[in-house]
């Protein structure tokens, strides 16, 4: 481990200690390489013959997938990455997979064929690359930039793995910013319909609007009142109440509702028009 890695680890540790509240201590990516470190430029033999490096200066995102045969997670990851590779095929993204040289060639070939992988598979004889980077897990995805520096490390995730890798490739391509990565890593809670703020009020509002269209002003007013009861700040509900009351000939009350709607939302057109019509009738 280099001095730079140790310094970053120390800094990360100090930052972590300074943080309060629940949260994991910062972890290094590969055991021996941190984000920002070079991943090395040696060429390895490929499964198909010839040699290839882990990264190319022509690619803005160099994606490498460490995997092994006879492992469900590796197979599902390779399948997902094979699909992902097709998605990025017109962009400067380079893909390789890396497998330990200890596995029988036939086993590796079978896994690669089952996954539908089209990109090169590097064979790490003697686990030299594994050892140098400190690859402890399978599968794991690393992403390096055009200078061969590690940008990201994504260990296997059972859920949302593909999304996490995809967004990091897009960040390497400068298509998205870090905030987009954060949104994928921390997806918002998927609220149920009734948990969404204002949802129930809006249902009553829309039902009331439909009833008013059918000239049922009393029912429309009732729905508007329910909506207001649930969301007093919903200007559209006050406007609906005003329109329903006006339709029932109760302009003095309607004006109060229109005024409230305009107070909450000065640009509310329905309230402004309703108010104008009521005022003209007086």
């Amino acid at each position, binding site marked *: 481990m280099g001095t730079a890695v140790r310094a970053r680890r120390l800094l990360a540790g100090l930052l972590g200690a300074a943080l309060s509240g629940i949260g994991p*201590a910062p972890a290094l990516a590969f055991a021996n390489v941190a984000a920002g470190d070079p991943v090395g430029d040696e060429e390895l033999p490929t499964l198909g013959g010839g040699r290839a490096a882990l990264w190319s200066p022509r690619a803005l995102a160099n994606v490498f997938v460490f995997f092994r045969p006879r492992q469900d997670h590796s197979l599902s990851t390779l399948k997902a990455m094979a699909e992902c590779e097709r998605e990025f095929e017109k962009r400067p993204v380079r893909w390789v997979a890396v497998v330990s040289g200890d596995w029988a060639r036939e086993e590796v070939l079978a896994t690669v064929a089952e996954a539908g992988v089209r990109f090169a598979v590097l064979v790490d004889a003697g686990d030299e690359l594994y050892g140098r980077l400190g690859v402890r897990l399978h599968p794991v995805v690393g992403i390096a930039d055009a200078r061969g520096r590690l940008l990201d490390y994504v*260990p296997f995730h059972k*859920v949302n793995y593909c999304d996490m890798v995809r967004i990091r490739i897009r960040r390497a391509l400068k298509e998205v910013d870090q905030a987009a990565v954060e949104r994928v890593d921390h997806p918002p*809670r998927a609220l149920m*319909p009734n948990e969404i703020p204002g949802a129930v009020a809006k*249902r009553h509002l829309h*039902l009331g609007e439909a009833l008013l269209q059918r000239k*049922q002003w009393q*029912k429309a007013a009732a729905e508007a009142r329910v909506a207001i009861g649930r969301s007093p700040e919903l200007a559209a509900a006050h406007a609906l109440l005003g329109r329903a009351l006006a339709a029932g000939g109760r302009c003095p009350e309607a004006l109060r509702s229109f005024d409230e709607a305009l107070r909450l939302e000065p640009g509310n057109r329905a309230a402004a028009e309703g108010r104008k019509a009521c005022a003209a009738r007086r």
Partner: protein
Amino acid sequence: MARRRTVHILVALAGLAAAGGVAAAGPRALRKHTFKVRLGPLPANQKVAWSHGPYEAGDCSICHASADPRKPGPVSKPGNELCFGCHEEFQEIMARRYKHPPAQESCLHCHNPHNSAEKKLLHVELGAGCKDCHPAIREVAAKARVKHGALETGARCASCHNPHGANVEKLLIQLPFDLCVNCHGADGMKDHAGVSLTNFKKLLEENRFWHAPVAAKDCSACHRTHGGDNFRLLVADYPAKFYAPYDLKNYALCYGCHNEKVVGEPVTRTLTNFRDGSRNLHFVHVNKAERGRTCRACHDVHASKQPLHIRQGVPYGVKGWILRINYTKTPTGGTCAKTCHETKTYSRAGAGASRK
């Protein structure tokens, strides 16, 4: 209006999937309800617990061409567009990354638009309706030797899954950990056998070094959430005790991600940093025909106060006496002070084992 329409609903998942976030999941088989779906109001002799507002108020024309309850005629708009006219929140819900194909196709696959004996106007009870299209889950839950209480309590499937749309794969409401701690983040929880379960909120607050799947909120990497045959719903075998004869298959859980060669090679300079020179100390501790130390002897699988998930102590024996590990990290290795054995120091820079 009281006519009964019986429909066997074919949900063309593959075609719909291509339109939504489920595309990544690939083509899916067609699925079919085995129960009969009733779209008209329940017959008079059937218990009604919930009614749709417009139907209850007799406002048939909100949805139908006519206001006459005896002859309401066809609905005024096709498909979900009609429902979303009032249920505006579905514009956001159905824009989420992952969508439930039946919900995309028609709300009526799961809901009766008039009335129902079930909450949310569901055709059948929530869990039963889900399992009808997801028979593999029904089978896992029924046959599992170790059950997960979440499937039969609270909102059942909907405790963890949003049946309309979600931002996480498998229509999970949140990332797994955030869902799990809703229940497993409090004291007093017990399993089916009455054994107390860990309060994970507290554990993680007190132990800042988290195992990567825990830090990734990925509990399902190791636990089978619908039920399973292994202790603690683990997805694969993992030794439950301190000692075990070394057998690769006993560690299937760990080797689902970790490299099994870490315990298989007596000599290495690449597989692990837990080595004295090139002598692999993982091999020394674990790879024994009889009393091999299992992973749990030294590592806490969820979180620890020390790096590398090294425990401070491990429960040992029938009374759970805490055996101190007394590990200290050094620049090139570490030291374990005596409890398991006399104090030993290892160094990756060295040529072999050394003792103090």
